[in-house]
């Protein structure tokens, strides 16, 4: 069951856009971080069920932050949300172990579909 979501993006506007795409009736607790370093620190503190991760950020970018989170917790669910949709960028984040990559701007359908896929994965893991 998904309880907590962490949004990592340097753009307050992008975080606002993404938040509006997350269903409000599920009672998710949403946390935010403004760069990859802050995102990693918050991951360690909060252990969120899903991380939405931007790629191009100051201090620590999304590639490094995803790598650090996956190193800390190999089961972490990191959904990359980015404007950088070059094939090599997509391949790189998937190699790092991202759950999926969603193209910006955030769209309600794609965000909810990704959350549903995470729910299915978590359910399957619980059934094992």
């Amino acid at each position: 069951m998904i309880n907590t979501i962490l949004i990592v993006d340097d753009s307050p506007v992008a975080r606002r856009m993404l938040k509006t795409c997350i269903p409000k009736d599920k009672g998710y607790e949403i946390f935010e971080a403004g760069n990859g370093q802050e995102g990693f620190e918050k991951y360690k503190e909060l252990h969120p069920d899903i991380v939405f991760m931007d790629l191009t950020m100051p201090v620590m970018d999304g590639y490094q932050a995803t790598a650090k989170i996956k190193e800390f917790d190999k089961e972490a669910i990191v959904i990359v949300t980015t404007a950088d949709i070059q094939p090599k960028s997509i391949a790189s984040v998937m190699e790092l172990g991202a759950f999926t990559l969603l193209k910006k701007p955030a769209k309600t359908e794609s965000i909810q579909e990704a959350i549903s896929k995470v729910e299915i994965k978590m359910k399957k893991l619980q059934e094992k």
Partner: protein
Amino acid sequence: MNQEASINFSEDEKDILQEIMNIAFGNATADLAEVVDIYVMLSIPNIQVIGIGELPFYLKDTIKDDGESSIVEQKFWGNFKGSGLLVFPSGSGKDLLAFLDDRADYHHEGTAAATLEKGGLLEIGNILIGACVGKVSELLSTFVTYSPPQVLQGKSSDYNYLIEHFDPLQTAIVMKTIFTFKEKDINGFLLILTNHESIDWLRKALHEFMGTYE
């Protein structure tokens, strides 16, 4: 009177425009990747509101022209109106052309080499400026028409020619994105300049865009 204060473009509006520029340039690089095997490392866009009278100084400072820059310029018209400038180190056109056509013969000199380099710059410029401005326009629910791109090269330290269609007493919004073509280690940047008459429309369009997320 400060030109920036006079048009009252808020930090929130700048943040929205920054995110839109980020999305647009990301899409433009993906479009480029469809045509050529190139990987573009992106940076966070920077948005500034500048008096047109200050723009030549801004460009001179930003481009740091010592005769070592090549600039592709493309104008666009519509509700969203202005110029796109793609700035590369001089001489990089030949490297860029090699991405576009790996069978081409680059062992030319003089005029032939300059023509080839110009061709490479124009092609990359056309894709990146067109795709970026096009995506901004799409996100803001409008459309623009373009002039053909042109290469501006040389030792000119006077950037007035870049802004000759702007009113010097008015204000422009400058959106800047720095990028690196990783394989060739070529750094460049894209500037999108919008003129004063677009600003009221732009502000309204930005709020309508965010309104779809409320």
